[in-house]
C-alpha cells in the first residue's frame, strides 16, 4: 500500500496540452475516483500514473518515490483495463499467474496466490477455461484477479465496468468496493459515470477539460459543489439552473422570484446562477407556479418535468402527485439547500 502524489502534472501531445497542471493527493488505502466527461484527461492521467504515458511536466510519486522516469513494471502497480486485456491464448490460471511467472516465483507460491485470488473472486471453477469461454462479468473478474495476485502498492482501474450491462455493472460495483474494503489497497479508478463515482469512492476528483474542478468526498461534492460544472455533473437528474439577478433580498428571473440562501452575503445586485437539486423542491402554497409537462412516477418518488415561466425545471417528490400535464403546481426550494454561482466565473457564492 502507498500514497500517490500528483504534483502540477501537465501533459501535451505535440503542441496540444491536454492536462494543465493537475494536483491530487491519494492517501494510503484510499479509493479515489477520477470522474469527468469524455476527453477531460482522466484516462491520460491514470496512464501517466501507470507509466504508459510520459509526464510532460510536474511529477508523480508512488509511496514517496518519484516515478517520472521509472518503467511501468518497476512502479509496483496493477492495472485493470476497460477491455480487460486478457491474454486470449492463455487460460484463466495462466492469465493470473503470468506476472508471478515473470517474477520467477516458485510454483507452489504461484499456485497458492492464484488459488486464493480465484477463491476471493469466485473463479475457481473457471481456472482452466480460456477468456473466450467466459461471460463479460467473469472476464472482468479475471482481470481483477490478475491484479490481485500481484499484491501491488496501487490498483489502477480504467473504466472497468463500461463494457458490462446495467445489472452486472451494479453487481460488479459492489464487488469492487467490497474487494477494496477487504484488501485496503490504494486505488485510483477512472470512470465517466458519476453514479459509479458517488457510490464507490472515498474521494472524488472531478475533472473537466484537463483541469481538476473539485476534489472531495462524494456527499461533499453533492452538497457543496465548488462551481457550476461540478454542480451540473454530479447528481442525476441534474441540478436545475436559473439565470437571473439578486435584487432586494431575493433572486429574480423571468418575472418570478425565489428565496436566497442565508449564507450569501454581498451578492445584492449581482448576476448569478441559482441552482436547485430536483429533490430539494417542495410543494408549497407560498411557492411559484410551475406548469407540469411530463410526470414520471418510479414508485419511490415521482419526477416532474415542468416549466417556470420559460425555464424548464425537474422536480423529484416523495409524495404522490395528482396533477395532470398542463396543470400548474406551486413549488418552492428549501432555501437552506439552494446554490448560488457567479454568472461569469461559475464559482460558488454561498
Amino acid at each position, binding site marked *: 500500500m502507498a500514497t500517490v502524489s500528483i504534483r502540477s502534472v501537465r501533459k501535451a501531445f505535440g503542441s496540444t496540452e491536454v492536462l494543465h497542471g493537475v494536483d491530487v493527493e491519494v492517501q494510503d488505502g484510499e479509493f479515489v475516483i477520477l470522474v469527468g466527461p469524455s476527453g477531460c484527461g482522466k484516462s491520460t492521467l491514470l496512464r501517466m500514473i*501507470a*507509466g*504508459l504515458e510520459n509526464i510532460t511536466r510536474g511529477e508523480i510519486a508512488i509511496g514517496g518515490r518519484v516515478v517520472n522516469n521509472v*518503467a*511501468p*513494471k518497476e*512502479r509496483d*502497480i*496493477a*492495472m485493470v*483495463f*476497460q*477491455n480487460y*486485456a486478457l*491474454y*486470449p*491464448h492463455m487460460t484463466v490460471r495462466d492469465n493470473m499467474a*503470468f*506476472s508471478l511467472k*515473470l*517474477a520467477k516465483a516458485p510454483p507452489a507460491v504461484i499456485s497458492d496466490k492464484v488459488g486464493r485470488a480465484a477463491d476471493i473472486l469466485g473463479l475457481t471453477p473457471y481456472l482452466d477455461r480460456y477468456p473466450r469461454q467466459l461471460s463479460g462479468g467473469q472476464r472482468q473478474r479475471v482481470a481483477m484477479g*490478475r491484479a490481485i495476485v*500481484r499484491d501491488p502498492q496501487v490498483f489502477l482501474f480504467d473504466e472497468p465496468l463500461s463494457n458490462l450491462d446495467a445489472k452486472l455493472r451494479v453487481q460488479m460495483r459492489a464487488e469492487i468496493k467490497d474487494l477494496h474494503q477487504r484488501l485496503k489497497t490504494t486505488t485510483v479508478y477512472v470512470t465517466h459515470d458519476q453514479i459509479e463515482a458517488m457510490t464507490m469512492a472515498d474521494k472524488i476528483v472531478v475533472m473537466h477539460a484537463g483541469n481538476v474542478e473539485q476534489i472531495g468526498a462524494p456527499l461533499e461534492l453533492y452538497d457543496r459543489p465548488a462551481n457550476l460544472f461540478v454542480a451540473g455533473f454530479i447528481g442525476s437528474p441534474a441540478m436545475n439552473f436559473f439565470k437571473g439577478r439578486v435584487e432586494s433580498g431575493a433572486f429574480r428571473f423571468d418575472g418570478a422570484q425565489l428565496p436566497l440562501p442565508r449564507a450569501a452575503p454581498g451578492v445584492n445586485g449581482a448576476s448569478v446562477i441559482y441552482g436547485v437539486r430536483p429533490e430539494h423542491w417542495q410543494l408549497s402554497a407560498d411557492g411559484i407556479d410551475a406548469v407540469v409537462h411530463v410526470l414520471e412516477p418510479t414508485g419511490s418518488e415521482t419526477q416532474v418535468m415542468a416549466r417556470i415561466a420559460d425555464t424548464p425545471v425537474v422536480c423529484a417528490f416523495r409524495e404522490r402527485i395528482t396533477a395532470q400535464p398542463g396543470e400548474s403546481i406551486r413549488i418552492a426550494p428549501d432555501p437552506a439547500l439552494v446554490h448560488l454561482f457567479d454568472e461569469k466565473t461559475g464559482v460558488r457564492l454561498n
Partner: protein
Amino acid sequence: MVERGERAKHGLIQLLLAINAVVMLYPLVVMVLSAFKSNAELFASPFALPESFAFTNAARVWNETSFVRYLLNSTLVTAAAIAGILVFGTMAAYAIARYPFPGRSAVFLFFLSGLMVPLKLAIIPLFIQLGAMGLIDTRAGLVLVYIAMGLPSAVFIMTGFLRTLPGELEESARIEGASEARVMLSIMLPLARPALVITGIQNAVPIWNDFFFPLVFITTDALKTLPQGLTVFMGEYNTDWGVLFAGLTLAALPITLVYIVLSRQFIAGMTQGAIK
C-alpha cells in the same frame, strides 16, 4: 420469385467454382496418373487411366537418381529460408507495427519496395556478390537469396497483422513485468500465428518449387534441389516422361501435405478481420 433468382445465382456460383476446381486439379491428376505409365503408354493414351498402378517409375526415381539427397537439400534449403524469413521478417514487422520511431514509414517502404522489383532481374549482380562472398554452389548462398526474396512480403503481411492487435495487451504485459522481448514472444506472436502461417506457406511453396536460382547457383550434383535434380530425366534426345512425372509427384507430395496440415490456420488467417 426472389428465391428462384437467388437459387439460380448460387447455382451459377457453384458451377463456376466447380469448373475452377477442375481446371486447377486436372494437371495434378494427369501428373499423378502419368506417374504410373510407361513412355509408350503415355503417348498411346495420355488421358486414360494407367494399365496398372505399379510403383515401377517411383522405384526407379528412388533407386536410379539421388532423389533422397535432392529431397534432403530441398527440405534443408526451404526450412532454413522459411525460418530466416519468419524470424527476421517478424522482428522487422514488429518494430514497424508496434514502436513509433522516426523514419518508420521509410523503413516500411524500403521493405515494400522489394515487392516491386523481381529478384530475378538482379541475377547478375547477385551472382557477382555471392561469388565475392564465396557462396556460389553452396546451400547457404541459396538460403540467403531466398530470405532476401521472402522478406518484403513477410514484412508486409506481418506488419498489417501485428498492427491490428490491441495495444492494451502489451501495456498490460509491460505493467506485469514483461520485458519487450517477452511481450513479443509470449503475448503478441502467439496471437499472430495465423499471419505467421500465411507468411510461411506463401513463401515455402515458391521456394520449394524454385528451379531458377538452383540452376544458376548450384552446380555440384550433391547440392541440387528437387526441381533441378529431376531434370536428369529430361534427356537431349529422349525423355522418360513416366519417371519424370513420378519424380514430380513425389516432389510435390511433402509441400502439399504441409499445405493441407496448415490450411485451417491459413484460411483462419485469410478471413481474420472479416468479422469483428
